[in-house]
């Protein structure tokens, strides 16, 4: 294949149209958050139709693991479900890895309960906090303790492992401090296990990404969240317009400016940014709203300038 093609320089045009004439080769390495991976994977899949000779690999080492490899120069793009931390930034700087943050989709953390749960249709953030705060550990063990109106059903909690971006976000928003959570719940990196746990216990409650709920809507019930402005159910719209608060969050990718100089990486990123909402919708993510999409394009343009 020809490696003679230079990356598309023009703005506003998609890589697809630019590169249509010439086939590129090479490899683009992406690694990081397992939450974001389906999105970049879908992008890779669409991209393969345009540029079949460019091999895009998507790893799922977790946000932290992804940044570690990224800042070590081992990958080209990091997927992240939270912004980069200062220590990680320092590591990147030490290796001279220039990067920028692109928000590519939105996620709505969804709180789910057992189908047989008739009492909890809407929970306030205070109620959630009562269940999940460190002080609740070993004490709040029935629904009745959360709210006197609830039945005396044992409360069984399920959620993501302590080292996921989702956990960090949820604890930060609900309990007020990242990582502050009761320990006596069943944690799992694999959301399917959380699904199993909640479906298996009548008094079960868990939380995970919106996509996961949508796929398992027949087995589970999503709870509406009341953060003081009334009950809001999680949905694409409420996530996009920000009314599903405080549990909607942004998802990111971090491309390396150095890697973006390589034609195959540039081609992929061009394609990804140009088709972002099509890809997000296809991968069942909450797509960006117009405003967010415009910001993405600006941020990406800045990166390309930086990459030179």
């Amino acid at each position, binding site marked *: 294949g020809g490696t003679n093609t230079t990356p598309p320089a023009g703005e506003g045009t998609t890589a697809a149209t630019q590169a249509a004439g010439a086939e590129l080769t090479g490899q683009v390495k992406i690694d990081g958050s397992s939450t974001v991976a389906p999105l970049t994977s*879908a992008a890779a899949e669409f991209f393969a139709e345009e540029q079949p000779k460019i*091999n895009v690999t998507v790893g*799922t080492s977790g946000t932290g693991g992804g940044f570690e490899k990224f800042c070590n120069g081992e990958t080209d793009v990091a997927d992240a479900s939270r912004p980069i931390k200062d220590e990680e930034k320092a590591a990147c700087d030490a290796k001279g890895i220039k990067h920028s943050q692109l928000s590519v989709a939105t996620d709505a953390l969804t709180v789910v309960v057992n189908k047989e749960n008739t009492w909890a249709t809407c929970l306030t953030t205070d109620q959630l906090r009562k269940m999940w705060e460190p002080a609740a550990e070993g004490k709040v063990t029935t629904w009745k303790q959360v709210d006197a109106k609830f039945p005396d059903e044992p409360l069984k909690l399920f959620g993501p492992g302590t080292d996921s971006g989702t956990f960090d976000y949820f604890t930060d928003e609900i309990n007020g401090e990242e990582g502050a959570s009761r320990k006596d719940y069943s944690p799992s990196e694999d959301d399917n296990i959380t699904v199993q746990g909640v479906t298996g216990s009548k008094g079960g409650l868990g939380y995970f990404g919106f996509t996961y709920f949508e796929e398992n809507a027949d087995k589970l019930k999503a709870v509406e969240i009341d953060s003081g402005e009334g009950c809001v159910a999680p949905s694409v719209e409420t996530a996009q317009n920000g009314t599903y608060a405080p549990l909607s969050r942004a998802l990111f990718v971090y491309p390396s400016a150095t890697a973006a100089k390589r034609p195959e990486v540039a081609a992929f990123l061009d394609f990804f940014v140009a088709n972002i909402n099509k890809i997000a919708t296809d991968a069942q993510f909450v797509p960006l709203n117009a405003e967010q999409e415009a910001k993405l394009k600006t941020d990406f343009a800045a990166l390309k300038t930086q990459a030179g």
Partner: protein
Amino acid sequence: MAVLSTPRSAVQLASKGQPLREHLFRIALIASLAIAFVFLLALLSYVLIEGWPRLDSRLWENMPSVRNPDIAGAQSAITGTLWVISITALLTLPTGIAAAIYLEEYADRDRWWNRVIELNIQNLAAIPSIVYGILGLGIIARTFGLGFSVITASITLGLLVLPIVIIASREAIRAVPPSIREGSLALGATQWQTISRQVLPASIPGIATGSILALSRAIGEAAPLLMLGAVSFIRFNPDGVFASYTVLPIQIFNWISQSREGFHILASAAIVILLVILLLMNSAAIWLRNRYQKRW
């Protein structure tokens, strides 16, 4: 011999006394095997029934897809598994068997360092696979600079299963009667001739078992590879030992954790494929074992 008066008269030769105990023992033995089989059967049927709708050529002709379970396949994972496991076998079987020979036939067991090696091997067998992942990441991928490639995965898996090969081979070698060695040495055979022409052929069955167990473990292992960049989404086949790769257990793991039901079916189908590959891999060892199994 005053103890015995008259010999017992010609009483019936039919069994008496212990048949019940004997019977129960036999039944218990068969039950042990049967319980294990029932479990296996349950697991296999579960997987087979689940995966049946997707057990077709798409599985090995298509590349993975996150978008649509209907067009998703596992070709890159299948080729990746074949690459990784073949190289693992090439690396670990000779090393393991050689180490076993050294420990059984050359090492003086009263020397402390040989006892240390021995203990060390048993100990390695108990180290969780994830720790090998840490080792592989820090030392093989980074310090040796082999990166996240097939060869890194093979070395890591090879080290992980090495103790199994060594321990099983040692026991097999140890079971060869000393008179066989003496017979050979008395003919002026060197130690290595004795080992390679008498001891090893006689211990093939046990070595084959060790190899089967080791490769089985390696082929189904996912945890260390998760740390070694067996990235879950790869749409191309590896083209050499330094290529990026994915393997079936990772692909399976990945599909299982997908939210859509279609991917779960796919995962089950891929498990069936993995088991078929496993049996094909092992069949050479099984054949060797059956051929050489004998009693003396």
